[in-house]
């Protein structure tokens, strides 16, 4: 499905995401990498880890408010078949943990600290994702 270019909303949303990441570092000294926060929260139930569950609770609450108040749940359409989604989910979960970060941890926080690791990781996952979409849409067609 075609989508329209939304420069102002996307820029505003990006600034909010950046502000959230900055807030977490400034106040708590933590990096806002979602895959790291979720991956660690699932296995670390020590008191030092409780902030992760609160961050996730906030993320789900703010996100749900935005989903129903602004985006509209009808917009959330996954085009891939269930088997492909299972494989994709496994790859995203496993890959972000193996590579120590995702779009937020490497893309927003890591590049924000000019970490060479994060810059390289972001270039790699962007390039592979672009290649994947290219093959799927323009080579396999569909």
């Amino acid at each position, binding site marked *: 499905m*075609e*989508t329209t*270019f939304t*420069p102002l*909303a*996307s*820029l*505003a*949303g*990006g*600034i*909010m*995401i*950046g502000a*959230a990441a900055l807030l977490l*570092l*400034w*106040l708590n*000294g*933590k990096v806002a990498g*979602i*895959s790291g926060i979720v991956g660690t929260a699932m296995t670390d139930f020590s008191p030092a880890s409780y902030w992760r569950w*609160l961050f996730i609770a*906030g*993320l*789900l609450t*703010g*996100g749900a*408010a*935005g989903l*129903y108040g602004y985006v509209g*749940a009808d*917009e*959330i359409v996954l*085009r891939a078949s*269930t088997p492909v*989604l*299972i494989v994709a*989910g*496994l*790859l*995203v*979960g*496993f*890959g972000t*943990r193996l*590579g*120590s970060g995702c*779009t*937020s941890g490497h893309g*927003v926080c890591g590049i*924000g600290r000019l970490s*060479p690791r994060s810059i*390289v*990781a972001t270039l790699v*996952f962007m390039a592979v*994702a672009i290649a994947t*979409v*290219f093959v799927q*849409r323009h080579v396999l067609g569909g």
Partner: protein
Amino acid sequence: MKQGIAALVAGVLFGLGLAVSGMLIPDKVLNFLDIAGHWDPSLALVMGGAIAVTLPGYFVVTKRERPLFAEGFSLPAATAIDARLLGGAALFGLGWGLSGLCPAPALVNIASGFGDVLVFVAAMLAGMLLHRALKL
């Protein structure tokens, strides 16, 4: 207590930002990645807007002795660009390109209640636990 509230507030702002930015919409993500098709450059502005805040902000904040509510900064210490980093990023990119979902939007989209989103998130969490179990 203060740390908990700070984490909650940061999470809410992050979630709202994802919604406002368009990142929750898989079609929009895939169209951003589809540079040879009906390219939607919006998501470049999401990342650009976020980095425009974190780049100067992190620079200033990390000059401080410590965070406001914690004893010290917990920043990633690894510096090696190794096979784990590259392989992990490549696997993630493949999964992202196949689905249009990266971890944060996937979690937030649970609220849509759609079965295929739940399947994706379950697989994603399983993938994270699998990595943990393999001790890689």
